[in-house]
């Protein structure tokens, strides 16, 4: 199991979802649902959900989505508990299987909600978001978002996450939100997402030098737009302007092919030293920790 600890508080499991169980201190890699406003135990009765959600529901869209989220959270917690209590490898593997199936089932439930309601209902957004992030039905969900939800204040964050994943179709959505959204927050974060996405594209191995330069130039201007116009937009409790500044530094000075900027600091004994002390040697610079 290889882990990447994401700075923005997101944990990515490289190998599989199963890692959620092995690392009690870390959050499961599955996307966290927004907190449910109120618990509705009756909504989550096992057994009756499947039938209900393929039909038109009497409940509001927000209530239907909340019910799915509440049930998912409960089931996940239950499985994690069972896993930790289990001593048997075979049983553990079965629990992991059930955990993975849960993610698949939940996607189907969101899909049913999306299909059974008006696509422009603003409360549908979390379901569309979940579909996009699951990597299934992405195109359909992106199309609906593009058509009906560009002004949602949350869509900037979704753009950023999609851009980071390099999800197919994300460029169109990111550009549409950056250019057309009426929410300044969403707009600012979408410009940030665009800068990040373009820069990632510029780092593909098999790219002509011209194309690489063009992508980097556009990435720089997107990031400068954030700094100049949308610095106060919020993403993961950080200011988009600060994130854009850091990203711009990376694009300008830390991209493959650039001369590495000098780095000065103290070693673990407290002795000052510089990266340039090692010029003339190949340097493998490793950002690491024991966690």
């Amino acid at each position, binding site marked *: 199991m290889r882990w990447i600890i994401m700075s923005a508080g997101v944990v990515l499991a490289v190998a599989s979802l199963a890692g959620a169980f092995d690392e009690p201190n870390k959050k499961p890699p599955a996307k966290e649902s927004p907190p449910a406003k109120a618990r509705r135990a009756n909504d989550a009765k096992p057994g009756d959900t499947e039938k209900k959600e393929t039909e038109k529901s009497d409940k509001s869209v927000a209530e239907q989505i909340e019910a799915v989220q509440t049930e998912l959270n409960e089931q996940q917690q239950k499985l994690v508990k069972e896993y930790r209590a289990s001593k048997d490898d075979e049983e553990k593997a079965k629990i992991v299987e059930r955990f993975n199936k849960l993610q698949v089932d939940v996607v189907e439930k969101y899909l049913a909600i999306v299909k059974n309601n008006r696509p422009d209902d603003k409360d549908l957004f979390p379901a569309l978001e979940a579909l996009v992030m699951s990597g299934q039905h992405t195109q359909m969900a992106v199309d609906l978002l593009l058509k009906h939800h560009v002004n949602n204040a949350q869509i900037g964050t979704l753009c950023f996450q999609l851009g980071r994943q390099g999800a197919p179709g994300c460029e169109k959505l990111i550009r549409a939100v950056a250019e057309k959204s009426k929410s300044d927050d969403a707009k600012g974060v979408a410009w940030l997402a665009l800068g990040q996405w373009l820069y990632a594209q510029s780092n593909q191995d098999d790219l002509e030098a011209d194309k690489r330069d063009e992508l980097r130039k556009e990435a720089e201007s997107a990031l400068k737009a954030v700094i100049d116009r949308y610095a106060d937009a919020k993403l993961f409790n950080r200011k988009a302007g600060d994130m854009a500044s850091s990203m711009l530094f990376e694009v300008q000075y*830390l991209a493959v092919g650039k001369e590495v900027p000098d780095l000065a600091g103290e070693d673990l004994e407290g002795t000052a030293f510089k990266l340039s002390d090692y010029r003339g040697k*190949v340097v493998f610079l*490793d950002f690491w920790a024991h966690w």
Partner: protein
Amino acid sequence: MFPHERSLVQRMVGKPFTLIGVNGDEPGDALKEKNKAAEITWRSFQNSRGKDDKDIADEWNVQGWPTLYLIDHKGTIRRKWLGSPGDEVLDKEIDALVKEAEAKDGN
């Protein structure tokens, strides 16, 4: 990753190569003990540079740990990865750059 890093450092003794870390742990005796136990012999920057200066990882826009940079002997960034690409890839890329550096030395 530590076992691979240890063997990498050993394999490269006497060659134009160095492994430099940027360590994200809380500095102090506990960390020194942990490093000793894990046989971490290579030099690392402390990520934190105090209250008034930006952490190195923030300045370098590190999106996740580990982040890896491979820099050639002339100081050009040649490869970078968010998350390890695997020991085999790392060995191959590092060997190629060390060869370049050695060819330069020989001239």
